[in-house]
Structures are given as structure tokens and as C-alpha cells.
């Protein structure tokens, strides 16, 4: 449960004007990034990352989480205005948000979207604040073998979510693990796969790898599109001032059951490693649709559908952050880049973070709660200006973003070779994405490969040559059983599909 000392300490850390300014800047940047078609939170965080170099770790993390939160909400604004989800998480928002805007209720839709987002965020961070201590205590029970099995389980879960591409996703995870072994071995100090280059002796830096994997593929795809906007909707059509916006804010609370149910779904899905906000919002939308009254027409501008999608979208953020903080497993591209921010400031998310820097974790979570209130005001303001921002053409946006990202890669170690590594990782990421090998699995493998190798080696020293003994440890055994169940279910599905003649 929450500790009063941590609460007071967090208030002390948060009570500074410069922090408020940093958070406002981060939220605004995230909102704008989310509103620009094709630019997601991961790309936004990647661009802003170098600006946090000189900040202290707490301020930097507050800024990065602000960009993350702003990006999620900004994606929803775009979905309502243009029927184009700014982020994958905003797909469900388009179902009822855009039809509502087309009915001339654009301001009401904005009011509902922003209020729902804020409610979802506040709910999930409040839950996470209550759960973080028991969660971290549980995470501390993870020894080398448990951690290794957890990584395998995460690979299998993500691969299962990818459905048809189960095999390719697992393959990407194994490739990520192999990729992580490049550099000097912690066990033997032997240099592996460095081609004799000193700059590769420490391996490919995690931050460069993450930014490359998630930011560059987006830019490569954007470079071939003049604009992601298919259809321009006039902001003026349904605009009749702040009253409508306020009406939208109030309308959100007409659906209390949906609000709470979607917030619970969002938080729970967010807690699952790698499930992501897109899945949370789609699940929540589906559950709201299933319980619809006969007069409600989902998909034709039903406000409750918009509430369900947006609450779950932002509620998943708290869960995903808790998963990152307690287990050190990023669930999405955005949380992976956020993890890069932790590394940059000398912090390693995972069980030890809560043990060593509990003050910082609590302050961060309280800070995220505080961000939600600020986000409410800022998002409503940005919603009015959004139509201008989204007109920024890709032919200007793409080259400038690449120039800035190259700068941030250089400033990591003051080496231009890191820019080469960044783009090489980016091209690899683009291929993984294009050929449906899961980039998230690859990234988890690349990030967790080194600790897994070290712990596997340690397990071998502990258990000797009989490695099967590790599977008889209670937690490892449980995780193995869950992994096997997932594999079995997926194998059953694949065999069924094969018999139906669809191939794999």
C-alpha cells in the first residue's frame, strides 16, 4: 500500500516551477507529435531524448513520460478530426469519434475524448500507485531462471498476439537475443562479432538500437507518402465555441459504468507485457458494444463508444509503465524508447529499481498523475489548433526529423558511427516490420539478451550440468507451464488453419 513518507517526498520532488514548465513542454510536444499523422509517441520521445541529456534523471523522466502521455491523447484528436489514427492506439477512437465529428459535433467529440483520456490516465496511475509495492515485491522473487523463463513467456505471448505470424515473431525474438551477444562477453571478456571495431566492443548501444528500430521505420514509410491525411475535415463545420466542448466534457460522465469498466480493462491489459494500448482500446470498445442498448448505434457516432475507446487507451499507459518499472519489460515501441531514457540516465528498470530508487519511482507515478490534470487543459487547447499542425507536409517533416535524430544519436557517445548504427538498426527494423517479424520481440531480445545470458550462465554454475533442475523451481515451473499452454493453443490454431487449407 501507499506509504505517507513516499507521498510527502514525492510532493517535495514535484514542487518546483521548472518541473511544471518541463512537463508542460513535454505534454505539448507529445500532443503535437500525436496529432501529426505518422508520428507516434516513440518517434516523439526519440526526438526529445537528447534534450534531456543535461537534466537530472527525475526531470528527464517526467519530460519523457509527458511526451508519452501527450502522444496517446494527441493520436485520438487526429482520429476524430480526420478519421486517421495518429497512433495505433487511436484506431478504436475513429469508429465513433469521426462519425460524431461528421454530425457536426466536433467539439463535443473533443470534449469526450480528452475527458475520457484524462479519466483513464488518472484511474490507472491511482491503481498502479496502490499495486506497485506488492508488484515489486513479487518481482523480487524472480531469480535468474525465472527471469529467463519470463523473457521466453513474453516472446510467446507477443508472438501469439501476432496471430498468423507466430513463427516469425518467435524468430525475431531469437534474432534479438543473438544480436545482443555482439560485443564483449561479460563472462569471458571475449569480443564477439565486432569485426575488430573498437566502437562495437560494448555492443550496439541499447538507446541507439531502440530509437533506430522504432523511429526510422516510421520515417522510411512516411518518406513515400505526401501526407497521411486521406480526407480533410473542416474544423469549422461543427464549431460553436467552448460551450459545446464543455457539453462534451459533461457527456462523458453520463456513462459511469463504461468509464469504470474501460478503465479496469485498460489498466489490466496495460499490465500484460507487450499487450499495448491498441489492444486495450479495441477490447474495451468491443465490450461496450456487446452491452449496447437497442437504440445505440455503434460506429455511427455513439458517444459511449468513444468513451470506451479513449478511457482504455490512456488507462493502459499506467499499466504499461508499472510493467516496465517492476519487471523491466517494455510492452510497446513507446515504452521501449522510454526505457532508453532510463538507461540514458543510469537507471535500469526492473526489480532492482524499486529497491534502489523507490523515491524516484513513486515521485514519477505521482508526477504522471499530476500530468493528467495538466494534460486535460492542454489537450483541449491543442484540439482547437490541431487542424493547422497536421498540415505540415511530410516533405519538410521527414528530412528535418532525420537531421534531428542523427544529432541525438551523435550526442549519445559523441561518435558519428552511432548514426550509422542508428540507421542500420532502422533499416533492420523496417525489414522486420515489413516482413511481419515482430520488431517488439526483436527489441525485447536485444535489450534483455545480455542479462539473460549472464543469468543462464549463473544458473548453470548453480545447478551444474543438470539444467532441468531449474524447471522444478515453483515460479520457473509455473512460467514454463504457462508458456507451454500458450504454445499449445497457438499450435492448435495453426494446425486448424492448415487443415482448412489456408497455409501458415
Amino acid at each position, binding site marked *: 500500500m501507499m506509504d505517507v513518507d513516499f507521498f510527502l517526498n514525492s510532493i517535495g520532488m514535484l514542487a518546483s516551477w521548472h518541473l511544471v514548465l518541463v512537463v508542460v513542454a513535454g505534454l505539448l510536444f507529445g500532443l503535437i507529435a500525436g496529432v501529426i499523422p505518422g508520428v507516434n509517441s516513440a518517434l516523439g520521445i526519440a526526438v526529445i531524448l537528447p534534450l534531456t541529456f543535461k537534466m537530472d534523471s527525475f526531470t528527464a523522466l517526467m519530460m519523457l513520460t509527458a511526451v508519452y502521455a501527450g502522444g496517446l491523447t494527441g493520436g485520438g484528436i487526429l482520429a476524430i478530426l480526420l478519421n486517421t489514427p495518429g497512433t495505433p492506439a487511436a484506431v478504436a477512437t475513429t469508429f465513433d469519434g469521426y462519425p460524431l465529428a461528421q454530425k457536426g459535433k466536433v467539439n463535443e467529440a473533443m470534449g469526450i475524448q480528452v475527458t475520457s483520456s484524462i479519466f483513464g490516465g488518472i484511474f490507472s496511475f491511482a491503481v498502479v500507485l496502490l499495486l506497485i509495492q506488492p508488484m515489486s515485491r513479487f518481482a523480487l522473487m524472480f531469480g535468474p531462471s525465472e527471469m529467463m523463463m519470463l523473457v521466453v513467456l513474453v516472446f510467446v505471448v507477443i508472438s501469439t498476439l501476432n496471430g498468423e505470424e507466430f513463427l516469425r515473431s518467435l524468430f525475431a525474438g531469437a534474432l534479438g537475443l543473438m544480436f545482443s551477444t555482439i560485443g564483449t562477453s561479460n563472462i569471458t571478456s571475449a569480443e564477439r562479432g565486432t569485426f575488430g571495431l573498437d566502437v562495437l566492443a560494448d555492443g550496439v548501444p541499447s538507446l541507439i538500437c531502440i530509437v533506430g528500430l522504432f523511429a526510422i521505420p516510421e520515417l522510411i514509410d512516411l518518406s513515400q507518402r505526401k501526407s497521411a491525411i486521406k480526407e480533410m475535415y473542416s474544423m469549422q463545420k461543427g464549431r460553436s465555441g467552448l460551450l459545446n466542448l464543455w457539453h462534451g466534457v459533461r457527456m462523458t460522465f453520463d456513462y459511469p459504468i463504461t468509464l469504470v469498466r474501460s478503465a479496469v480493462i485498460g489498466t489490466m491489459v496495460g499490465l500484460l507485457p507487450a499487450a499495448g494500448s491498441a489492444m486495450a482500446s479495441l477490447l474495451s470498445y468491443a465490450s461496450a458494444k456487446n452491452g449496447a442498448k437497442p437504440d445505440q448505434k455503434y460506429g455511427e457516432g455513439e458517444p459511449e463508444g468513444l468513451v470506451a475507446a479513449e478511457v482504455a487507451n490512456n488507462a493502459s499507459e499506467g499499466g504499461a509503465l508499472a510493467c516496465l518499472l517492476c519487471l523491466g519489460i517494455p510492452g510497446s515501441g513507446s515504452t521501449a524508447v522510454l526505457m532508453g531514457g532510463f538507461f540514458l540516465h543510469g537507471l535500469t528498470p526492473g526489480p532492482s529499481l524499486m529497491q534502489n530508487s523507490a523515491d524516484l519511482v513513486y515521485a514519477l507515478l505521482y508526477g504522471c498523475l499530476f500530468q493528467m490534470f495538466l494534460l486535460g487543459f492542454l489537450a483541449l487547447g491543442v484540439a482547437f489548433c490541431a487542424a493547422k499542425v497536421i498540415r505540415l507536409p511530410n516533405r519538410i517533416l521527414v528530412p528535418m526529423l532525420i537531421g534531428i535524430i542523427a544529432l541525438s544519436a551523435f550526442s549519445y557517445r559523441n561518435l558519428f558511427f552511432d548514426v550509422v548504427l*542508428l540507421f542500420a538498426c532502422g533499416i533492420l527494423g523496417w525489414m522486420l516490420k515489413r516482413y511481419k517479424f515482430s520488431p517488439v520481440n526483436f527489441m525485447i531480445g536485444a535489450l534483455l539478451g545480455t542479462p539473460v545470458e549472464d543469468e543462464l550462465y549463473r544458473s548453470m554454475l548453480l545447478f551444474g550440468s543438470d539444467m532441468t533442475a531449474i524447471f522444478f523451481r515453483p515460479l520457473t515451473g509455473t512460467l514454463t507451464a504457462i508458456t507451454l499452454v500458450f504454445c499449445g493453443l497457438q499450435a492448435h490454431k495453426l494446425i486448424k488453419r492448415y487443415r482448412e487449407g489456408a497455409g501458415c
Partner: protein
Amino acid sequence: MRFDMRNKIILIDASPAIFAAVVGIWSYFYWQSVASLPVDAQASVFFIEPLFWVLAVGSVLIVVNCIQIKQRPQPAANIEKFLPKPDPNLRNKFLFSLVLIAYAFSLDYLGYIIPTLAFMFGVSWCMGTRDWRVFCSMALFICIFAKGVFGIMLRVPLPFWPWSN
């Protein structure tokens, strides 16, 4: 890729198959290079060896899965629906990737400003920008951003020009 036989059509999704095969081959050479290290080879390859087998088996399975044998549909026009949709911009995306790598390699020799401006103008031109005011604004922005934010605020020792190295 498509091969027509008497009653059947063989469809091969070539790109992911090639990608998986290349990864499989790379993992073999990587494993071999570590296994042949003069010192501590066994401990160094301890984690890599099982991964190699996973990747090797995985790449074979993926290549097999990329091959589909279908009954020839009637009428013949329906064949098209089996074929994977080609990406019309694929060539441009590959070119763009090559330009990115060339840009990254040139930075070490030419400093930050010259390759970045050349890259920005080139890409922007290819994407349809013809207005010199846009080019000037982009150049101004990136110079101010690099010098102001990185050079002065963050004190990053960024080599701006070839002679700054």
C-alpha cells in the same frame, strides 16, 4: 514469385524467405566465428549455440511457410487474389534506406552541416519541394537548432564542418 504448373500454382513470398535465410546463414557464420576463438570459446559460445539452432530451424520453417501451393482456380482471373500485393514504393524505400546509410557515413568526413543540408534538400526535392524559401527555412532551422541547442545549451562537441574534426 509465381510458378504455374498444370493444375497448381506455386506462390513464393520471396522477400521474408530471403530475409530469414540471410539471418540463418549469418547466425551460422557468427556462431562459427565465436566457436573458433582461441581462448574461452566454449563459454563464449554457450548462449550463442542454442540460439543458432533456433534461428537455423526457424529460418527453414519460415522459408517453407513462405511457399504456398494452390489449386489453379477457375476462372483464371481469380489467380490474382492469391498473389501478395506489391508495394509500389518499395524501390523508393530501398533507395531512401541507401541514401540514409550514405548520409551517415559521410558525416564522419564532411562534418554535420554539409551532409545534413545536402540530405535534407535532396530528400525534400525528391518529395516535391520546389520553393527556395522552404529550403532556406529548413537550413536556418537545422543550423540554429544544432548550434543553439546542441552546441551551446547541451555543449555537445559536434563537428559542424570537415575541418572541425
